[in-house]
């Protein structure tokens, strides 16, 4: 089969690789009908995440048709079912899964020992996202093996298109959880850093959850236009001071809720700390750039909440913990507990409250994937979300 494989920094190729096979009774094999490139795939493409090996299959946003089901998953799935596959692989039985903390499933990471060493304790296995999280082949391919398939799936109802359902696997629940963990109140101003796909879904989630005012921050005009269409007031940080504008919009008090939809590759601005991060990262003295975190901690209203759905991989420097402590800020973060939200979000799509396909800007074949990684990273051609059709 064909698949997009990682071969090093800035090097993703469309290779021919062996087809997947059932390896465990709880496995299923699906034929991928639609998949996508995620912003967090760019961290692998840019070489910022450790634990990748040449030939690893990329992709953790995918859906398709069930082709084969292991004996242990037959009660939940049958051949021909259309499913979206959450990017977090979940056993559904461990203590964390029973609590709904699916992204820290205790059993699905087959490289648990490595994760234990790196993170202190293991997190869930992920598709196509380094050997630290299991080294599972990803979904930017024609076929995928889905481990724990009896639990790791969302059935797609008839009549719903792939484009409407696909993002239930990651970015929609990720934006949603980022907002939910802020515990939005009707009086809240929510500031969202980053108008990429997760930021776009966070904006719509904040609308659905009833925030009074939503402010979106980015410097790409077309992304800001999409954010505005979703109900946000926008700040272009190339043109105005984020901190000054946020204070102006909140009568000098700062937003109650701040959401980081950017993560470890915050773009350098003209600020000193951004240049510092760039220099330290270039010299391998720091793995993640923390400009957005620092800005959120600075501008957030005292007793406010900071939510971090953006991906961080390792170490950050110069975090103003004094601000966090003295202002009494609450920080909530984590990979998305996808399955916790999908039933509710699926219902909202069916109900017409939201149509997630709004975010798709490019649809191409799998063989154009390597080129699209660059287009997406460089934000060329108005690219916000790339969907691939294997």
């Amino acid at each position, binding site marked *: 089969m064909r698949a997009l494989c990682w071969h090093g920094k*800035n090097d993703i190729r469309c290779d021919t690789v062996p087809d997947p096979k059932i390896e465990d009774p709880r496995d299923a094999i699906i034929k991928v009908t639609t998949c996508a490139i995620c912003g967090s795939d760019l961290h692998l493409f840019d070489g910022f995440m450790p634990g990748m090996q040449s030939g690893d299959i990329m992709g953790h946003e995918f859906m398709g048709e069930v082709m084969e089901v292991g004996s242990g998953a037959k009660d939940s799935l049958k051949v021909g079912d259309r499913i979206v596959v959450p990017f977090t692989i979940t056993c559904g039985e461990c203590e964390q899964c029973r*609590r*709904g903390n699916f992204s820290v499933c205790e059993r699905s990471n087959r490289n648990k020992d490595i994760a234990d060493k790196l993170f202190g304790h293991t997190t869930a296995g992920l598709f196509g996202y380094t050997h630290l999280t299991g080294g599972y082949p990803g979904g930017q391919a024609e076929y995928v093996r889905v481990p724990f398939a009896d639990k790791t799936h969302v059935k797609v109802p008839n009549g719903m298109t792939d484009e409407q359902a696909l993002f239930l696997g990651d970015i929609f629940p990720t934006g949603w959880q980022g907002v*939910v*963990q802020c*515990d939005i*109140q*009707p*009086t809240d101003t929510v500031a969202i850093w980053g108008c990429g796909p997760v930021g776009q879904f966070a904006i*719509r989630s904040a*609308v*659905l*959850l*009833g925030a009074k005012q939503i402010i979106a921050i980015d410097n790409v*005009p*077309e*992304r800001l*236009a*999409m954010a*505005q*269409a*979703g*109900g946000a007031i926008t700040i272009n940080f190339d043109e105005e001071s984020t901190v000054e504008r946020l204070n102006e919009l909140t009568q000098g008090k700062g937003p109650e809720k701040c959401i980081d939809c950017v993560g470890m590759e915050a*773009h*350098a601005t003209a600020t000193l700390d951004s*240049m510092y991060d*760039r*220099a330290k*990262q*270039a*010299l391998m003295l720091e793995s993640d750039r923390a400009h957005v975190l620092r800005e959120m901690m600075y501008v957030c209203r005292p*007793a406010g909440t900071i939510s971090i759905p953006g991906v961080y991989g390792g170490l950050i420097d110069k975090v103003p913990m004094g601000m966090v402590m003295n202002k*009494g800020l*609450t920080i*909530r973060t984590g990979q998305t507990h996808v399955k*916790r939200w999908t039933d*509710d979000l699926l219902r*909202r799509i069916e109900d*017409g*409250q*939201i*149509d*997630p396909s*709004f*975010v*798709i*800007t*490019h*649809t*191409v074949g799998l063989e*154009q994937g390597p*080129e*699209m990684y*660059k*287009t997406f990273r460089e934000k*060329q*051609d*108005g*690219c*916000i979300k790339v969907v691939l059709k294997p």
Partner: protein
Amino acid sequence: MHQHHSGSSQQMMSRDSARGLAQGLGWFSIGLGLMELLAPRQLSRTLGMEEQSGLIQAYGVREIATGIGILASRDPTPWVWARVGGDALDLATLAPAVPDNPQKGNVLVAMMAVAGVTALDLICAQQLSTARQQEQREQRLRYLPDYSNRSGMPRGVEQMRGVARQDFEMPRDMQTPEALRPWTDGRPAQADAGAMASSLGTATTDHDAANTSSSSNLKPQLSSAQVVRTAADQVGVKGGSGTAANHDAATTSSSSSLKPQLSSAQVVRTAADQVGAKGDSGTATTNHDAATTPSSSNLKPQLSSAQVVRTAADQVGTAKDR
């Protein structure tokens, strides 16, 4: 939605290879700079320029700065051109040292090495500049898509504002902790009380007993949800019915001594805090009563008993923490 049509992949590869070369030059620059900075005397002796060790150190700082600039910047082009300028400076420094120099051979070798690196710097800088100009041309010509109609909400954004609040069950583990909720004049801010009541509706079934015992003392705007929430927290923490019994005991014993405006919720909350802090509900109840009784009698009228209870609880917590 539209199909992709960007610049050719060949141009991208050319730019990528130039960036790769620039990265290599950046590391080389840092390495050379460190050598010049840390071993200026050895270098100056090798080149027969003993009196120039200070200048060599300064050049080392320059090399390190340009190296970091190349590695850290989004666009290394100006930094690579800065290297070309630095190369010229190096050659201009070395050339006058050739005549009458006992280490003439070494100086000539150094000049040849610098000339070689200069050629690499020039090639890299030119490739980067060409690629940058090409990108700028494409940028000017590129089709800027209009996404201003992509709300993602077929029924309109304003129609959808807050629609999920009607039926979304806020998970308990993601709610703002009670202690961090807005608190005004001894009670939660009104805007939040209603919201809490709606978001906590699910807890009522499991904790009817707690609700009933406490809600009669609450002001209308202070939702019984808070009481339920507190009791729910207790049960969640302890995971057993024994705790609920203790909770009732704590509520009963405390509420009788409090003014009407002191909500049972707050008393329960205090007891809950103590239970959580101590890990032993029996002790918590005793401590709580002891803390409340002597303090409340000394209070001014405008100081609500709630505050006293809270203070006592805080003290208990603080004492434990310390």
